[in-house]
């Protein structure tokens, strides 16, 4: 008899990682190999199995019928929704809005181009063992953000598109990417500040982190949209969307700072001591020795925070910016498509789920690869 028979996998502490939002990542042996024995081993097991099967049949079959079997896919108007299942005609008719919001039809290629560039760069950076990653990453980091804003917002020979016309999935991705671009550097600085040996800097960083972690993101979005115009000099109007990015970025930065701090604390002190012995100063020790290792350790936690950011972008609905969920919600108000609540939510939900689930799987894969590479 061992722990595994009791349904517990022996497992040392520290291998289960818990992020600030409670997301737990467990890397351990898989259980449930003895499939058949576990399903019908004892009368109790058999009863549980049958109850679960009944639950699945009760829930999954109507769901499958609604989603696929009885669903309507072809047609253009509400009158074409004749099946008893979902009416995907609604989503097809609104597809452009779900993706681009009210972005002008003729300019949507710019969004596509920006999206394609984003996918190409992230894919090649995530590609294990691709040469020339460092210059590519650096170039993307310097050129990418302004290029993206220029493509989407226009100006300089491109037709300007006001941010109030943006929406849908593109806005979700925009908020996530630019929120992270703001939050990650700020988070690193805050984490370093919190670990600093200088008391004033440590105090400032600690207060900032605890403040932004202690308040609800909705309140921060309100705060950003109300107070930013107020504290800037008169006439320096700040874009509504920029306010939302700043609000989200500040909040997530505090969470990311805690993730990075975890990585900093995981490093053995010998690393910094060795760097000091080589005569490196603070900045070179941090930049060349500490951060590269700490960031690698905190990558899973950082990914969790990024997932939290992707999920929290939906909150911009509160300040009347219509991202994917907001557009789905707004589409429900269309009298021509009244009652299509579940179709809109199902479509938006699946996209969110795919993005977040994909990210968490990617982070797990990176971590497994990292673990293989560790030599003791």
């Amino acid at each position, binding site marked *: 008899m061992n*722990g595994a028979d009791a349904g517990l996998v022996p497992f040392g502490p520290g291998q289960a990682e818990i992020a600030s939002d*409670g997301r737990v990542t467990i890397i351990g042996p898989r*259980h449930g190999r003895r499939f058949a024995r576990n399903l019908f081993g004892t009368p109790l097991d058999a009863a549980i*199995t049958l109850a679960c099967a009944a639950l699945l049949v009760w829930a999954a079959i109507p769901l499958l019928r609604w989603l696929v079997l009885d669903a309507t896919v072809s047609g253009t108007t509400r009158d074409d929704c004749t099946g008893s299942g979902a009416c995907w005609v609604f989503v097809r008719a609104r597809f452009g809005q779900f993706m681009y919001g009210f972005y002008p039809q003729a300019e949507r290629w710019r969004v596509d181009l920006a999206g394609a560039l984003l996918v190409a760069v992230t894919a090649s950076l995530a590609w294990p063992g691709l040469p020339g990653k460092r210059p590519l990453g650096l170039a993307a980091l310097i050129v990418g953000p302004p290029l993206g804003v220029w493509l989407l917002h226009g100006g300089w020979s491109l037709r300007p598109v006001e941010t109030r016309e943006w929406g849908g999935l593109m806005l979700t991705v925009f908020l996530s990417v630019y929120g992270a671009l703001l939050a990650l550097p700020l988070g690193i600085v805050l984490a370093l500040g919190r670990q600093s040996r200088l008391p004033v800097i440590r105090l400032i960083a600690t207060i900032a982190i605890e403040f932004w972690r202690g308040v609800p*993101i909705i*309140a921060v979005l309100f705060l950003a949209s109300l107070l930013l115009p107020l504290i800037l000099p008169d006439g320096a109007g700040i874009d509504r969307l920029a306010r939302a990015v700043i609000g989200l970025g500040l909040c997530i930065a505090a969470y990311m700072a805690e993730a990075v701090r975890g990585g900093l604390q995981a490093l053995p002190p010998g690393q910094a001591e060795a760097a000091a012995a080589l005569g490196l100063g603070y900045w070179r020790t941090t930049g060349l020795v500490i951060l590269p290792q700490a960031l690698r350790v905190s990558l899973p936690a950082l990914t969790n925070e990024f997932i939290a950011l992707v999920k929290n972008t939906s909150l911009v609905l509160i300040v009347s910016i219509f991202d994917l969920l907001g557009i789905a919600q707004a589409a429900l108000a269309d009298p021509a498509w009244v009652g299509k609540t579940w179709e809109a939510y199902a479509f938006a939900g699946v996209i969110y789920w795919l993005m977040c689930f994909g990210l968490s799987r990617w982070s797990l894969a990176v971590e497994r690869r990292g673990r293989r590479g560790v030599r003791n």
Partner: protein
Amino acid sequence: MSLAAALRDRKVRDVIAQAAVAVSLVALLVYFVRNASQNMVKAGIASGFDFLWRQAGIDIPFQLTGYTSASSILGLLWVGIVNTLLVSAVAIVAATVLGFAIGVARLSRNAMLSGIAGAYVEFARNIPLLFFVLIWYFGVVASLPAPRASLALFGVAFLNNRGLTMPLPNATGGFVWALLVLAAGIVAQVALLAVSRRRQARTGHALPLGLTGTLLVVALPMLALTVAAFGTGWDIPVLRGFNYRGGFVLVPEFVALFAALSTYTAAFVAEIVRAGILAVPGGQIEAAKAIGLRPGQILRLVTIPQAMRVMVPPLTSQYLNVVKNSSFGAAIAYPDVVSLFMGSALNNTGQAIEIVAITLALYLAISLAVSASMNAYNARTALVTR
């Protein structure tokens, strides 16, 4: 010491660096405050906290504090605080129960059960909470039957698209007594526990604590509760025309927000529970078996205390998240602090800075209180390493 030498001195440089950061931060703050006061003068916005005592003039569909639209804005804030804490407390309890069930189910050796639990966790934690809130509100609660066709719960409570109507007792004195009985029972049980420990140390035999616990903490309070419930008259809701009259109505916003918070948070609680149980080394359980403990004792004396040490800090921060996340109610106009105070009161008064400051201070106070108590708990239960 020359100036150049002083600049190379580490202590001097530390002071300069800290002073530079502090001064630039203060300068930035001063700049913001100056802009704000100029902008406010220009826009004709008043400042100060006098507005808190002004009449609110806002109707709130759901409140427990005796607020009327003639009450002050401070009264409005109080309604928001009570509503925030109410929905958070109920959701925390539900999420904990649901989350423990799912977390334990996920560790079951029955692949079907653990598979379903795992699928739920992966489903729920990769979807925005706002999505849950909207689905529960516009999808589920809105499609509940109209009052005439309500779902009756035990014939006294009614669930329909206007919320959950519950019976209300006419007098609450009996319930206070029931609470007192419960408190007395808990005190007595704790005292018995101490007596039993001492007796076990002396004679090796423990008192039948399970039996006394059932009697003192469960049976007697239940009896008192039953007496209290039957001793008073009830205001049971009755269908009159198109809606129920009497009783107490939990508005649909409350029902939806509660359901969303508990179903979403349960997935995170489940993962914490699973991690906590997995973190107990298998050797501990083997050792407990080797010294002859029964499975129930192993669970109670070995697994749970060690799992709790891992679980409590993330659970606390999860509970804190529930309190913060209850602000998602603003999306469906549940009258919590954010939607009442940062929404309605701010629209009425325009005093953004004061209102934002009060709201943030409230949440910060809750967060700091909870994290202080968590640190105290951690210090008490931390593993002593030798």
